[in-house]
């Protein structure tokens, strides 16, 4: 049961990512909801995932 405003068209938006990015996210074990996409409406492309992985690796490396 979806509440008003808690619909696909409301606050429960689906993650917007191109097919290759979705595949890559699975391969790298990346949670797409944590990636900020650079495309229109936050659309995630493969490059965004690579950047996300780099960023998290860096912050992990710097002990944060």
């Amino acid at each position: 049961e979806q509440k008003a405003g808690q619909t696909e068209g409301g606050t429960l938006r689906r993650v917007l990512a191109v097919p290759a990015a979705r595949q890559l996210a699975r391969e790298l074990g990346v949670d797409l909801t944590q990636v900020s996409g650079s495309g229109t409406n936050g659309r995630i492309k493969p490059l965004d995932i690579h950047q996300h992985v780099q960023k998290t690796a860096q912050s992990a490396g710097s002990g944060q």
Partner: protein
Amino acid sequence: MDFDVLVIGAGPGGYHAAIRAAQLGLKVACAEMGAVGGVCLNIGCIPTKALLHAGETIANTRHAADFGLSYGPATLDIAKMNGWKDGIVKKLTGGVAGLFKANKVTHLVGQASFIDANTVKIGDKTYTASSFIIATGSEPATLKGLDVDQVAIVDSTGALNVPDPVPARMLCVGGGVIGFEFAHIYNNLGSKVKVIEFLPNIIPGADADAVKEFGKIMKKQGIEIVTRMKANSAQKQADGVHVELENVETGEKTTEVFDRVLVAVGRRPRTAGLNLEAAGLKATERGFIEVNTRMQTGVPHIYAVGDVAGNPMLAHKAMKEGLVAAEVIAGKPSEQDAVAIPGVVYTSPELAWVGLTEQEAIDKGYKVKTGLFPMSASGRAMTLQSTEGFVKMVVEEGTDLLLGVHIVAAHASDLLGEAGLALEMAATASDVALTIHAHPTLGEAVLEAAESVHKQAIHIVNR
């Protein structure tokens, strides 16, 4: 173990799974009790499209008079047409058999039945495998009171055999995709065709506007369409099949006589003979095998794909699922994560769609804008003598995100490629509108429908 993967059923779901698994280096077998290629190649997608093309050619030749081309009387050699169709089926199923060989997929002939979760029996042999993919498909649903004899009362399989002469009066019980494809075929071949549908609308699942336009065109071509009507019984008599029809709203009953009756009231998943219980599985009440997005059943090393794994019962869904199952088994992180599964009615013009209908989008809570471009304003459509229909686009207000595309047009199924990719790429109407489309093409109607979302179509007056 005899095999890494044993696939049960060599329809589109099964053969895609088998070939992909083999491509990924697995030792694969595929069991098939009937003909390789399944429903799709043998008695589904392919033979219907062959007959549709034959019928369409007849209609096109008639329209050729508009540009001054006329012919002496036509003769249609129905046996030859059926043979031509069968030849295509043979070529394609032979192709799949060849692909099995080339990819080193072992083809096991016979009905597979589980003995335990790692063993199946086929004939008097048993085979073990580490993983199984159930791809046993579906079969026509039956209708009480209408006993299919595949001559006077047929299901889709019998309807593929066009009788000589073609039936003068034909009834299609069921106004879904299959019902309309056959209605269109027989109508073009010369039958007087009536389609009855229980629901208030034909082609359930398609966008209401698109269905309305489609129905109007089919009627203009001579097909009679009656909704809210069911068939209660059919009696074969000397002068034809007497069918009792009932208006489901008023309860009024009438009897009409037809020369052929097609029962096309849906399909049901096929698990009979599989002995699912031995593998620790159980079908749902409606007969499906439940799976997750990795196509795994409740028993993790047993997968199910295609018609048997749920709706929509479409070949391309089966294919995708087959690939996913094979890849997951091979250790790849694949998933059936399609944004949308396209649908097509291969009449002329075609009805094709992908993504949400306007109503579905509203129901899901989207604030919706739409765009529409009529084929009558397309130069290419005029030159192709096919100006009926339109492209309709359903878009989210604000984000401009494309939610669905609904096309009634010649070659609509070809235009669907762009629409499908657009949805998967999370494209906006602007992405489509800013992309140069070759002139003069039918695809310009897709561009203009996107422009019309922003009230900026060029070849119509935007309101």
